[in-house]
């Protein structure tokens, strides 16, 4: 086929020519316009043909630009005409004839075409009709035939309220037209405004409309475009529906370019479209029911709903709209007839909103059902419609946007909990819409988004909600049920959702349900197999973190499983890997395993770095976490570096006043305070407070806590006035927050305030504050609690200093009556109180009693407190002043005398006989009363230490999480051939509340070594502590380490409130101290803190520094045969977690304890050494 070949070639040639030309033309256009001609002439002088073509092209520049300008204007005009045709043109048809009809007047134009009044003037009838000329072009026979068939169906519609279709056809140029009865009436909205009919009239009209729609539905015709303009009311008040089925007809006759969807091209009026119409879904009778709802809405309230049909949530109730309108004075004129808002409230509102549900399945099943419910109302019977609950509303969303379902639910929770939720809500809805479109591929992102929202919406605000939130939580159960039902075919989403809901339960403080739900989610993730593996790992970590609070033993393997996924995820999904490591890090942090926590945070940071995660927010969180862990580990300089880096990054990312800075600043402030840099601490804390305040304090708790810390830091710096002022404000805010009932926190803040009032010498005010504090504590603390002693003790000090030693004595006795049963005889605070009481007695010249109290107390205190302890100094003063009085039987030689000029101010006394009051001496620094050491030591040890006060401490390392372990070995003892002794000194953690009767102490004087498991706190934790102790003992026995092999049945476990629990003859002590918990403002799981707060386990105490980084600890203590303490970082189960911290000589001892532990030890060392996920 040579001809074809030739054509091919010529095409190819032409194409090549064009390509050459185009290349040259492009090059020419690179030049500045004026230079182009010259340039091409120079460039292509050797190619005359090409040059000519180029010059021609360049010459066309100006003309083509002008031509396209003109063409553009033409196009604009054309667009106007094309898009308005044929409606506008049709207006000019008045007087024209179509078929037998003569067009008399243009009645209306619109998207549905133009409507004329016409008469049939072929002499057969003299009938007025309406003729509607539809837009669109019925150009082919098929379309014409289809239109005819449709018309046939429509003409069968027979109902008084439906305008009958009389005739139809196509205009000569192909526009379809329809002929209907001519109705002389007003559109519904106009009728309402002009007639102002009564409620009853309105409802009766509506009932007829609903009947008409029902009858059409029964004939298989859906209106699709019910709106006021299509509902005419004649002069006798009868409704006439226009355009029945026209929409569908139009769809059939749609313009040729209109893409065909399943439903065809469906014209509609957006303002009155049903949600499914807007969504382009198939439209059925339910759409008419929706539009009937809109008509009813209009009939009742005079307005359309104020939101888009596809907007989430129900429209505002008609009664509310009506009330608003009336308030605005818009309903002036003859309003007597009009419905009143009160009349709409209740059933009518509910009926309308049911018709307007965005899910067709939630509406009335038919127009008839809607009418019937309305009739029920008119008859005074209960209606069937029920108000939609928030949860069903949420589920409505969930069904439409399954991926985003979790988000909406989470948002409701956020809303319920936070005053700032609205902004987030709006923001998230936007997100939700987008997510709905992106569908399952973005499920993970959705989840991240919502978790992020969670993190940002501080659930601490639950404080401000009080009981209100409870109702929302109540419906969670229903939500869960619904989730299981509705999402059963989408197991992955269901699993995600359940995990999220679990978080809501956590927030609600319903931890059993939360755990159960999370377990279910995890099971479902497992069932998903490999597909669910990533989600499983992430949620396992979360779950383990939850669970670890209560059951460390079960949680451990789960956390390990989650961590095992980290190496895999680090490559594929770094965000999840980081999330797991963060959870795991805090999991360790929670129990004081700060080194392990730090390893995990470091690893997370490493992954973030390697993956190039450039998320400043996350960076801040990582640095912040590292900083906290380092602080806990006493690595203050590095901690400082990290926290400062976090601060710089947060500042540059979020701005200097952003709320995200608060946590970091607070951590820096607390770190500075630890380092003794008071001024620095104050600066940081002040900034924390400023930021929280300027951000409207999304969390009162954080703000108050920061202010409290700031006030105390100011106090430490000797700035009492400011401290007092700050505490006053805290008290006021707490008072406002708590309402008339008051709160425990208020009681404690009052107590702190009283201390400063006391220092200030304002005794009446101090006493007043203490009275209130006492009341608050009585009301909000358990009946048995050492905290009840706080106001008494301080009141005693006030009484003492204000010259009422008798009253002071009473207060101190009262204090002791509370403390001894709750804290035990040996508690430091007990000694302090005894000494103070001795001072009161001495002032009253009861010297023998004073001495008998003071001397042993001082001895005990000397063992427990540092030299700089102000109470110790004061006690020394008392004893010193007693000695002469005992010796000389002469009072007043000591420091009891008041300096008449200075009045009773707190003073520090000098030691010894010359003790006297010093005016202006530095006052006694405030110390947390209960932050004094929880002493655990043997009497014999006391005795030894007393003899060798300077000996003993061979190693001490600061350990801020829970206290301080001092491994002591007395050389003197060794010399005497006695076994070395151990002092286990656990400083109570700052902020720790020592619960009733669960003092922990270990008495090494017992003949037998003991295994003690003590849980502190709530009863179940107490029990858990016991179990742990037993467990430990069992482990030891199994390991053949039971000292004398006492059979198990002979173990004695004494579970008594204020006794130690003994399992005899085993040489381990496990102290389960459930003290604090991680506080990390950005953690999802910090609801734990909430829970504990509710459970009353964390307190602001007298002068207590409320740390943002309270650690918790399950502490195990192991002693060797010589009673030497081998490190104490057990988890209470005999497993040593803090490996690698042992000195070489200690490791041997540890390995002695049990092969079981040894195995753990070795394994863990392997991991530390680089094996496993954290290496």
């Amino acid at each position, binding site marked *: 086929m040579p001809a074809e070949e030739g054509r091919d070639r010529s095409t190819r040639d032409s194409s090549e020519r*064009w390509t050459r030309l*185009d290349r040259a*033309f*492009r090059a020419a*256009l*690179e030049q500045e316009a004026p230079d182009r001609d010259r340039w091409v002439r120079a460039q292509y002088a050797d190619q005359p043909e090409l040059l000519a073509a180029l010059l*021609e092209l360049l010459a*066309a520049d100006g*003309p*083509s*630009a002008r*031509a*396209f300008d*003109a*063409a*553009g204007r*033409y*196009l*604009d*005009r*054309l*667009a*106007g*005409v*094309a*898009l*308005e*045709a*044929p*409606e506008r*043109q*049709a207006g*000019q*048809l008045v007087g*024209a004839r179509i078929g037998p009809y003569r067009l008399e007047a243009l009645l209306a*134009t*619109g*998207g549905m075409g133009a409507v004329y009044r016409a008469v049939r003037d072929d002499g057969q009838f003299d009938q007025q009709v309406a003729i509607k000329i539809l*837009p669109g*072009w019925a150009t082919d026979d098929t379309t014409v035939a289809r239109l005819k068939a449709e018309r046939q169906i429509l003409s069968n519609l027979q109902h008084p309220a439906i305008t009958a279709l009389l005739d139809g056809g196509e*205009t*000569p*140029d*192909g526009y379809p037209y329809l002929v209907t009865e001519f109705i002389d009436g007003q559109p519904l909205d106009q009728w309402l405004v002009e007639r102002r009919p009564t409620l009853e009239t309105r409802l009766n009209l509506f009932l007829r409309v609903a009947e008409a729609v029902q009858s059409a539905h029964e004939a298989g015709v859906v209106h699709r475009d019910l709106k006021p303009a299509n509902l005419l009311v004649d002069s006798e008040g009868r409704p006439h529906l226009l355009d029945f089925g026209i929409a569908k007809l139009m769809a059939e006759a749609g*313009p*040729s*370019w*209109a*893409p065909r*969807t399943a439903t065809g*091209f*469906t*014209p509609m009026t*957006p303002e009155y479209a049903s949600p499914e119409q807007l969504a*382009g879904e198939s439209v059925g009778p339910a759409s008419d029911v929706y539009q009937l709802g809109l008509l009813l809405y209009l009939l009742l309230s005079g307005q359309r709903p104020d939101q888009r049909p*596809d907007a989430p949530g129900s429209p505002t109730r008609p009664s509310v709209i009506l009330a608003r309108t009336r308030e605005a004075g818009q309903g002036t004129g003859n309003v007597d007839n009009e419905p009143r808002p009160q009349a709409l409230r209740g059933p009518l509102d509910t009926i309308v909103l049911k018709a307007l549900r965005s899910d067709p399945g939630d509406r009335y099943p038919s127009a008839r059902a809607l009418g019937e419910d309305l009739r029920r109302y008119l008859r005074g019977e209960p209606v069937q419609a029920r108000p939609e609950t928030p949860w069903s509303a949420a589920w409505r969303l969930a069904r439409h946007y399954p991926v985003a379902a979790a988000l909406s639910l989470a948002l409701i929770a956020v809303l319920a909990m936070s005053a700032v939720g609205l902004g987030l809500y709006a923001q998230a809805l936007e997100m939700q*819409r*987008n997510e*709905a479109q*992106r569908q399952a591929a973005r499920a993970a992102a959705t989840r991240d988004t919502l978790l992020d929202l969670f993190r940002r919406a501080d659930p601490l605000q639950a404080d401000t909600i009080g009981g209100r939130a409870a109702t929302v939580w109540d419906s969670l159960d229903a939500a869960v049920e619904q989730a299981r039902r509705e999402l059963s075919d989408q197991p992955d989403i269901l699993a995600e959702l359940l995990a999220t809901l679990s978080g809501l339960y956590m927030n609600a403080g319903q931890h059993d349900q939360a755990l159960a739900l999370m377990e279910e989610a995890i099971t479902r993730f497992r069932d998903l197999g490999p597909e669910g593996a990533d989600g499983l790992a992430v949620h396992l970590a979360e779950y383990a973190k939850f669970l670890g609070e209560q059951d460390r033993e079960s949680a451990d393997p789960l956390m390990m499983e989650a961590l095992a996924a980290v190496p895999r995820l680090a490559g594929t999904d770094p965000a999840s890997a980081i999330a797991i490591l963060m959870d795991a890090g805090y999991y360790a942090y929670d129990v004081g395993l700060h080194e392990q926590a730090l390893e995990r945070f470091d690893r997370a940071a490493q992954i973030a770095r390697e993956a190039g995660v450039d998320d400043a927010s996350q960076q801040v969180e990582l640095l912040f976490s590292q900083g906290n862990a380092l602080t806990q580990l006493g690595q203050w300089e590095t901690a400082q570096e990290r926290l400062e880096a976090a601060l710089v990054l947060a500042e540059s990312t979020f701005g200097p006043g952003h709320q995200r800075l608060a946590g970091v600043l607070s951590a820096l402030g607390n770190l500075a305070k630890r380092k003794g840099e008071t001024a620095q601490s104050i600066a940081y804390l002040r900034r924390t407070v400023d930021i929280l305040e300027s951000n409207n304090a999304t969390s009162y708790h954080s703000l108050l806590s920061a202010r409290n810390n700031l006030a105390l830091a100011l106090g430490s710096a000797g700035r009492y006035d400011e401290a007092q002022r700050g505490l006053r404000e805290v008290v006021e805010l707490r008072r406002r927050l708590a309402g008339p009932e008051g709160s425990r926190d208020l009681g404690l803040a009052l107590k702190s305030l009283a201390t400063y009032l006391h220092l200030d010498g304002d005794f009446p005010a101090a006493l007043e504050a203490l009275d209130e504090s006492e009341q608050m504590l009585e009301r909000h603390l358990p009946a048995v609690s050492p905290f009840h002693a706080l106001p008494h003790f301080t009141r005693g000090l006030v009484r003492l200093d204000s010259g009422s030693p008798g009253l002071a004595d009473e207060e101190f006795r009262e204090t002791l009556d509370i403390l001894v049963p709750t804290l035990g005889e040996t508690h430091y605070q007990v000694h302090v109180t005894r000494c103070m009481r001795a001072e009161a007695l001495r002032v009253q010249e009861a010297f023998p009693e004073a001495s008998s109290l003071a001397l042993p107390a001082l001895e005990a205190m000397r063992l427990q407190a540092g030299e700089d302890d102000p109470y110790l100094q004061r006690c020394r003063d008392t004893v010193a002043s007693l000695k002469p009085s005992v010796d000389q039987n002469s009072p007043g030689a000591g420091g009891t005398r008041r300096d008449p000029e200075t009045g009773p101010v707190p003073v520090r006394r000098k030691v010894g006989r010359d003790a006297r009051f010093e005016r202006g001496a530095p006052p006694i620094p405030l110390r947390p009363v209960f932050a004094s050491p929880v002493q655990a030591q043997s009497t014999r040890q006391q005795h030894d230490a007393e003899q060798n006060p300077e000996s003993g401490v061979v190693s001490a390392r600061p350990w801020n999480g829970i206290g301080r372990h001092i491994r002591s070995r007395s050389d003197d003892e060794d010399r005497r051939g006695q076994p070395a002794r151990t002092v286990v000194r656990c400083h109570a953690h700052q902020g720790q509340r020592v619960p009733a009767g669960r003092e922990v102490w270990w008495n090494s004087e017992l003949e037998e070594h003991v295994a003690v498991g003590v849980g502190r706190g709530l009863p179940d934790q107490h029990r858990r502590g016991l179990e742990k102790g037993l467990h430990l003992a069992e482990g030891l026995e199994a390991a053949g380490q039971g000292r004398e092999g006492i059979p198990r049945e002979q173990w004695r476990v004494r579970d008594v409130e204020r006794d130690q629990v003994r399992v005899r003859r085993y040489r381990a002590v496990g102290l389960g101290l459930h003290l604090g918990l991680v506080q990390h403002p950005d953690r999802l799981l910090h609801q734990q803190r909430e829970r504990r707060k509710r459970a009353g386990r964390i307190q602001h105490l007298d002068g207590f520094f409320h740390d943002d980084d309270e650690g918790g600890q399950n502490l195990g203590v192991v002693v060797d045969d010589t009673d030497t303490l081998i490190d104490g970082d057990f988890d209470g189960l005999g497993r040593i977690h803090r490996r690698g911290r042992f000195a070489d000589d200690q490791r041997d001892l540890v390995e002695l304890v049990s092969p079981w532990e040894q195995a753990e030890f070795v394994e863990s060392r392997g991991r530390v050494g680089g094996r496993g996920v954290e290496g």
Partner: protein
Amino acid sequence: MPEKGPSQRPVADHDEFAGLDAETYQQLKMLAHARLNGFRADMTLNCTSLVHEAFLKLRDSAHVSENDSHFMAVASLAMRQILVDYVRQKRSGKRGGDVLHVTLQESRLESDAPGTDLIELDEAIGRLAKRDPELENLVVLRFFGGLTMTQLAEALSRPKRSVERDWTRARIYLYQELSQGAG
């Protein structure tokens, strides 16, 4: 936060056009009707404002979430089809000697520009597309979509100068083609 990525290339091929964006069409059409319902009868109708308004409306209704330029491409293409179809329809109707079109003010549509014959222009664009599809895309956005050079540059993620050069190129080719007769 529009996503950056391949989808930003605003080339809407016809399949995508027909399949994906039925709603876009519908919205465009409805928008035009809404105008004519008298809400904004005084406003000047033109392609640009229509396309933009349609875009805003669609974006609000959350049907458009991807990015602006993709929508602009689709909407411009829609406008092209609407107008070309309209002219075709008008022509075929004319052949029937109908009552309605008599009333049309033909003069409103007269123009001495080569674009007068929209169908010819459309065909010329089609031929240009075979040689350089990117030019077609650009012409549709510029001419039917009414995008400014700045918007074009943004939509195409290209430097403005380069887009300007291409537009010059395209309009000269088209002008030449049309003034030389269908070639």
